[in-house]
Structure formats: C-alpha cells, structure tokens
C-alpha cells in the first residue's frame, strides 16, 4: 500500500485528516554544567546502579589509568575504538594486546568475534540508571561493544551526567545507532532464573577517569 492511501485510512478512522504537525527539528539543550564534586557524586550513584544490575565501575585517577587497564585486560586479545577516542597512555598499553583496530569491514567483524575484550569510550555515563551511552560513529564501530565477552568503558569524569534527559542531546545528530548499555547481557527466560551473558557481553566494567584526584 502506498503512503498516501495508508494515511488516508488512518484519517478516515480518525474522522478526517489531522492538521499538519509542525514538530520543530530536534535541538540541543544546554549541556549540564556541574562542579567536579557534583560529577563525582553522580559517578558514585551511577556505579551503585550499575552494580545493582551486575555491572561494575571504579573511579581512577589519570595517573593510574594505564596500570589499571593493563591489570584488567592483561595480555588477552582486544578490539578497541580508534585512537582519537582513548587517552594516549591507554593506547600504549592496549597496543601490545590489540588484535585489530578498525580497518576493513570483514576482518573487523572476525576480529571482534575473536577478541576477549572490547574497549570503548562513551558519550555519557548516566547516574539515574548507570547506563553508558554509545553513539555509532566512524571511529566507534558497533561490534566493539557487542561481540567480545568483556566490555571495558573508559570515560572521563566530565561526561558523567545526572539523568536520561541529558542523553537526548546526542540524538539530535541522528547517529545511525544511539545506544544505552546498562550492565551485562541477561535473560530470565529459563524458569525465571537470571543468567548473565547470553548474547551480548557478560562483563561490563566502567573506568571513570578523574583528572583531579591523585
């Protein structure tokens, strides 16, 4: 059925066509301004909420970031987002373990399927739910956070926001995928018994990088 006939069916069910809807194009709201103390409090709440659904998170001072990533990832195979999205000291640690950075579509997918860890940044980390916001972009392919069994997120403290509303700004640019991830993949389909890691990653770990702590 063509679009106009479809609309006409609806209009006749409604008793006549509706006046055209002037929905202004989506516009960004002013980003949330906050002090470091506030952001730390949100990060604390976000970790709590993330932990309650089986994820984990920790605050790391910039000086210890590389060492902590090294500890977590060890020598296991890693896929990661492009250089521009991660702190440089993390890159040097990861490059010893990296199977593949985003190159061509076919080998990329195979690399993600073979990797143990997927390392990404995030557009935001949301206190209300503990969710990580990941918008698809050239430097941040989708499979990085989907196919490996472990997902490590490295996010600077200034991207911690209080509520879901704050994540809507990123929708204005209509990324091909706007994705919230809240904890590891889960299912209760078998006899109501909760299991972690059915299709998506079984581990979600967030490292919040706090520049000012030492």
């Amino acid at each position: 059925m063509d679009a106009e006939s479809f609309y006409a069916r609806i209009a006749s069910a409604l008793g006549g066509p509706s006046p055209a809807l002037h929905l202004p194009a989506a516009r960004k709201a002013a980003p949330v301004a906050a002090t470091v103390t506030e952001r730390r409090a949100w990060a604390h709440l976000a970790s709590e909420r993330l932990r309650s659904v089986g994820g984990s998170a920790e605050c790391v001072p910039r000086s210890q970031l590389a060492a902590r990533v090294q500890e977590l990832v060890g020598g296991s195979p890693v896929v990661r987002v492009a250089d521009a999205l991660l702190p440089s000291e993390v890159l040097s640690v990861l490059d010893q373990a990296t199977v593949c950075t985003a190159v061509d579509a076919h080998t990329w997918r195979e690399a993600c399927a073979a990797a143990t860890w997927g390392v990404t940044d995030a557009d935001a980390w949301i206190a209300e739910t503990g969710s990580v916001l990941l918008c698809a972009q050239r430097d941040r392919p989708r499979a990085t956070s989907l196919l490996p069994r472990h997902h490590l997120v490295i996010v600077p403290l200034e991207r911690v926001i209080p509520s879901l509303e704050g994540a809507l700004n990123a929708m204005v640019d209509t990324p091909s995928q706007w994705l919230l991830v809240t904890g590891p993949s889960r299912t209760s389909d078998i006899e109501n018994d909760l299991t972690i890691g059915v299709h998506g990653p079984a581990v979600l770990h967030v490292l919040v990088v706090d520049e000012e702590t030492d």
Partner: protein
Amino acid sequence: MSAHGLTDDFLQRAQHALGQDFLRQAVRKTTDRLRDGRAQAVREAGDFEAWRDALSAARRRAIARLDAVLRVFVERASAHGVQVHFAADAAEACAIVVELARAKGARLAAKGKSMLSEEIELNQALEAACVEALETDLGEWIIQLAGERPSHIILPVVHKPRAEIRELFEQHGGVTLSDETKVLAGYARDRLRAEFLRADLGITGCNMAIAETGAVALFSNEGNGRMVSTLPKTHIALMGMERIVETRADFVDLMRLLPRSATGQRITTYVNVLHGPKRTHELDGPEELHVVVVDAGRSQQLADRDYRDALACIRCGACLNACPVYSTVGGHAYGTVYPGPIGAVIEPLYARDDERRAELANASTLCGACHEACPVRIPLHDMLVSLRQANARQGRGDRSELALQRVAARAMAVPFVYAGGGAVARWFGRFVAGDGAWPRFVLQHTPVLQTMARQRVLPQPPLRAFRDQWADLVREDMRGSDGR
C-alpha cells in the same frame, strides 16, 4: 466462568492448563515475581505517577493525530536513509518482507523478539518462500524448537520446565547437557552466535518510533536485538502503526516506564535507537534499514472511540501479571497471540467476527487490577464490560443464561416479586448445593446451573436474605458505636 457465557473453547483450554501442575506453578511464580518487581520499582521511583500521566498523555496525543505524526516520522526517517513500507494487513506485511528477502537472495533471517511478527505469522510466510526464519531471543528460540507459541509477551517460555528445554537442545545439537541455566544459556549463545554472523537478514519488531528524529527503538536484555540490527546486511523492523511517540522527551518517559512496568528493571540492558543504516564511513551496521508500518486491524480500532485508548498500549505485560485469571491459567488458554486483559480487548477488535476471540471478554473478573497496573492507564476493565455488552447484544453466549438474566431483571424491578423469588431461589439453592443423588440429578438437568456447576462448587445460600438481615446489622452497628 460459564455463568458469563463462555463457550467451551476457552473453558476447555483453561481446564487443560489447570491440570498441568508445572504450568500452573510457573505462571504463578512468574506473574508474582514480575508484579513484585514492578511494585518495588514503583516505590523506588518517586515520580512514577507523574511519568504515567506524562506518557499516557503523550501516547494519546500521538494516536489522536496519528496520520500527521506518521508523516513526520516517515519524512525524517527517510531523510537519513530508512526505507519505509506500508502494509494494510498481515498478508501484505508478510509479502513485503518476503519480497525483500527474495530481492536480497536471503537464505537465513535472524529474528529479534517481535509480537507483531507472531501476529502476522511471518515465520510461516518466510518458510514458504524457502527462507529460514530463526528466532534468536532465548525464550522464542526454545518455543520455535518445540513448535509452540509464546505464553507470555515478555517471558514467552515460562510454561516450560528446564528438563524439557535441555532435551530440546540435546536433540537439536546432538549433545549432552546439564539442567543448569548457565549451561543451557551457554549452549544457546554458542549456537546462535554462528547464526548471527551468517544471517543475511535481521528482523526485529519496534518498541516505539520517535517522530521528532525519525527513529525506531528496540528494548532488550539479551543483546540479540543488537546482533540482528547490527550484523546482517539488511535490517527489517516491523512496526505496528500506533507504536510512535512525537518527541524525545516522550521517549524518556517510555524509557522510564516500559522496563519498570514489564520486569521492574530501572531500564532494560539495551535501549537501541536506530536512525537509519550505517553511514558511509562506518565499519559495521546494516547497509539497509527497512521499516514496515503495519495496520492489520488497528485502523478499525482507531475508528472506535470505545476502544481507541487500547492503542496506547506499550506491550509491557503488566496487565497480564496483575490479572487473577491470567496468573491462574497462563497464556495458552487464551488461544491468541496476545493473552491477558489486553489480549481480550485487542484480539476481538483485530478480527470482529471471530467468535473464538469474542469469548475472551469473559475471561476476566472485572476487578480492575489491569487498569491499575497499566502504565498508560488504559481502562481495560471498562472495555471488557463494553465487549461483554456487545456480545450479549449480538446474542453470543449461553441462551438459557440470557433468558434467566432477563427474568431476573424483571423480577428485581418489583419488590415483592424480588422478595418472593429470592426465597424460592434460596430454598432451591440450598437444595442443589446439598449432597445426595437427588440434588445432583436436579443440578445436572437445570439449564444455566448445569454449566455453572461444571466449573465450580456452588455456595450454599444463607437461610435469611441479606435484606432481611439488614435491620439487625444496623442495630448491632449502633450498639458498637455507642460502646466507643
């Protein structure tokens, strides 16, 4: 229930369900768990009622001008490369998907959970066109392997014991497994992972579209929805035409209410909002994203002011979990794709002449628990009453019961007939509720009563009518308040 005029179909199915101990306990356990989860989420969220008000209004606003809202959605979605199709009915929707599959030379379609796909029987249509349709939600996959239908819209396989699931998997893979959930889920993960990577087509539903940015959104916990919308070259999302909100702000209310109402989660593990296929420089994501907007009876429902509100439904399943009938008999007894109170309302509207669906209005106690649980405040119990009235007007239901109700209506209008008739009914009621061969014989041969008695133990009426006891009760009450 037969007192309400159900034909034997629902009763037989309900009876069958009640005879299965595992099913009965599993359904009860599931509905209890989900209901408790919801209650706890409501307590934790201080603004729950405000969110409900906001989302109820948003859903109704979008539906009241659905044609205009869909136009905006289609225009904006097309602008970032989404290809939108329209289907007037189930057959057309299936034909569109089959044609796309054929054009792509697809052999395997990996599917995310979609109730709409169940509704239009897409799997059968794909199989007929030699395209393998593979369910990838764990519960749906089990259902597919068993050749059954989902029994709950959120947890499709609650009726199946783990031992049966193990056997299904063992037959499927020629392997030996244990009954542990981890092992069973692990098997599914390994098996389906290969299929995700091999599939040419990913098919999902659409929890909600957002007109403002031209997006379709998928809520999921397992991650299979992400797989099928990321890995195959072509992604097709099936969307009921009413599943749309106008703005991102409306969508925030949905993100807060849908998971809480469904499972008591603050949010589902994944909320996946898609604005078209992968962009040129992106490394992964589908090359094409098609959205099929489906009517299939919804415009009929839209035209009917009595039932239009039911289109606001966000398919959370809270009304199923709240319903005393659903939590006793489970989803299969309804015999329809959508069970529970919402199913009893929308199924007859999708197919108006279907006697089988009309009877479902009686599968309810009219307690209103569904209305109370509904995040968008659909007055389901009012709709059920109105469906029952329509059924009675169309002469559906037990004829002798209708006759009895008519007599009763006359009698109640005249006080002395009512009092006299009541005395006779009480005497007769006491007689047939008694033990012995004679009462049983009379009971089995009295119209109306014979069907009532088949489903329940009849209560023994008291000797004195409530009206006669009233004066005494008032006197007692007075004495009580004097004493205070």
